[in-house]
């Protein structure tokens, strides 16, 4: 598979701060690739390195096989959808979208028809004469998308493009973005701090923490086989067990992760190879589709347990806070983690 973007040992320092620290990534052509991490973890700096707004302090970046060092942003075959959309306030929507074509010298008739097409693609046909200030947040977001896509870039960079939208709109745009990417076959590099968003849209996700990459994997592997305590707790929720308790339960001193929904309350069957623990039931939260329990083991370790409410009948509540409960999970559900700091 040819590579769209390749980072080799890339670092970017701002004074004393290492914003990006020895990062290596391979992004394949046509891939929906997400950079996921908390704020300040270096994901946006990586995006700006690809766009050319920042230069690496060390290491090399290749875009479609060509060394990117020294290539200014306007000569790169990549376009960006900015977090604040960065629409030009003094131009109408059509001129905003046609801007990239205009500066490249495309004749007026052609650039207007292509801009109209791009607007139609994001369901904004007929909005060309409006000013950005007259649009809603979601509409501005679509204009920013059309303005980038009209240039037919080989790589589209998206910097938390859905962050400013409300939940319903965000979910709708997630589906639309994913469809658009499939339809156009363009490489998408998507920056987000929202792990649900990253999991539901991406082919692969790189998880960032403090300027470094903790893990690059498919959403499914990221969730089922987190490599580090940070990934286990940042992607979804997880119970990370360390130290003596980890050794007693798993047989290895390395920390392990167990997802709340993989734990069952009650006693395991006598013949099963399940791990069995006992503790005090501290709290019960009814969350609609699931119920969440908090169990404190005798060692002090807190264990989150989640049980799906997958029957349409109202089940009688079998547990009360304050009582002692047993809990168990299959051996295979535990994922051994590298012994690094948690999030």
């Amino acid at each position, binding site marked *: 598979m040819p590579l769209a973007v390749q980072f080799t040992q890339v670092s970017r320092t701002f004074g004393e701060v290492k914003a990006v620290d020895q990062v290596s990534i391979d992004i394949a052509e046509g891939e929906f690739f997400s950079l996921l991490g908390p704020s300040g973890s270096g994901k946006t700096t990586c995006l700006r390195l690809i766009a050319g707004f920042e230069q690496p302090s060390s290491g090399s970046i290749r875009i479609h096989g060509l060394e990117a060092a020294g290539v200014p942003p306007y000569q790169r075959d990549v376009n960006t959808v900015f977090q604040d*959309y960065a629409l030009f*306030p*003094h131009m109408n929507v059509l001129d905003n979208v046609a*801007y*990239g074509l205009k*500066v*490249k010298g495309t004749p007026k008739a052609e650039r207007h028809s292509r801009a109209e097409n791009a607007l139609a693609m994001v369901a904004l046909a007929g909005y060309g004469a409006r000013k950005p200030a007259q649009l809603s947040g979601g509409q501005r977001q679509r204009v920013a998308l059309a303005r980038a896509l009209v240039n037919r870039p080989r790589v589209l960079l998206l910097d938390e493009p859905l962050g400013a939208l409300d939940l319903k709109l965000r979910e709708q745009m997630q589906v639309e973005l994913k469809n658009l990417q499939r339809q156009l076959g363009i490489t998408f590099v998507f920056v987000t701090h929202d792990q649900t968003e990253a999991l539901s849209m991406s082919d692969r996700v790189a998880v960032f923490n403090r300027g470094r990459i903790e893990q690059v994997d498919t959403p499914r592997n990221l969730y089922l086989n987190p490599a580090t305590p940070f990934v286990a707790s940042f992607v979804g929720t997880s119970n990370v067990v360390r130290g003596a308790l980890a050794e007693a339960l798993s047989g290895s001193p390395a920390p392990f992760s167990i997802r709340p929904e993989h734990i069952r309350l009650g006693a395991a069957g006598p013949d099963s190879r399940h791990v069995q623990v006992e503790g005090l039931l501290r709290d019960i939260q009814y969350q609609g589709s699931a119920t969440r329990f908090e169990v404190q083991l005798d060692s002090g370790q807190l264990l989150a347990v989640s049980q799906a409410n997958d029957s349409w009948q109202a089940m009688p509540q079998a547990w009360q806070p304050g009582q002692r409960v047993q809990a168990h999970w299959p051996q295979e559900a535990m994922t051994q983690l590298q012994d690094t700091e948690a999030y």
Partner: protein
Amino acid sequence: MHSDKAPWGLRLAAWGGLLFLHFPILIILLYAFNTEDAAFSFPPRGLTLKWFTVALARPDVLDAISLSLQVACLATLIALVLGTLASAALYRRSFLGKESLSLVLILPIALPGIITGIALLSAFRSLGIEPGVFTIVVGHATFCVVIVYNNVIARLRRTSQSLIEASMDLGADGWQTFRYIILPNLGSALLAGGMLAFALSFDEIIVTTFTAGHERTLPIWLLNQLSRPRDVPVTNVVAMLVMLVTMLPILGAYYLTRGGDAVAGSGK
């Protein structure tokens, strides 16, 4: 709680202050229409427009007006170019000596005009340049640049950095970004800065006294009129004209920069 009506004492003081500030100006406006030509009685015995015709028929008045307009236009033009370039160089990049450089730029407006005037005069003398229109324009440009610089740099700081990045990202080089994105965003700041600079130059007298040589700008002409009591109504007419020419651009500049927030960074 905020009450709509101020106490009467405060209102009286406010009106008193305004009257104190503007009474002399009102007198000048009133006596520009006075029928008498030397001895003034209050209230005026009658009102007339004849001094306007008299003033506009005098070649010395017309020459002074045309010189002042010429100087103000040239100084404004120089200020627009230099002020914009200076602010573009200083607003983002940091380099050694940046702080002292911006201080030096702003200094001409903080210095007393008399110092600027003496300094300019001796500089021109040592360079062997005869005082004339050129030296007046240069003298005025020193403080007009500051006005434009301050306006433009304030606008640049308010312009979202991501607009410039977006332009570069979409394939525009530095010149295209300046032409299509930065300049349109600066438009009203340039206009406001230019109008203020024009107004400042038009009624400047201290620096001009030192750099004018034999040339007579309108303010210098007015100053010379003080020794000619028989011309007072004409002087009043000209003073009124100066007031209008300087006040209207300042009002215009105020309205232009007031709405500036809506221009830049509306993406957020």
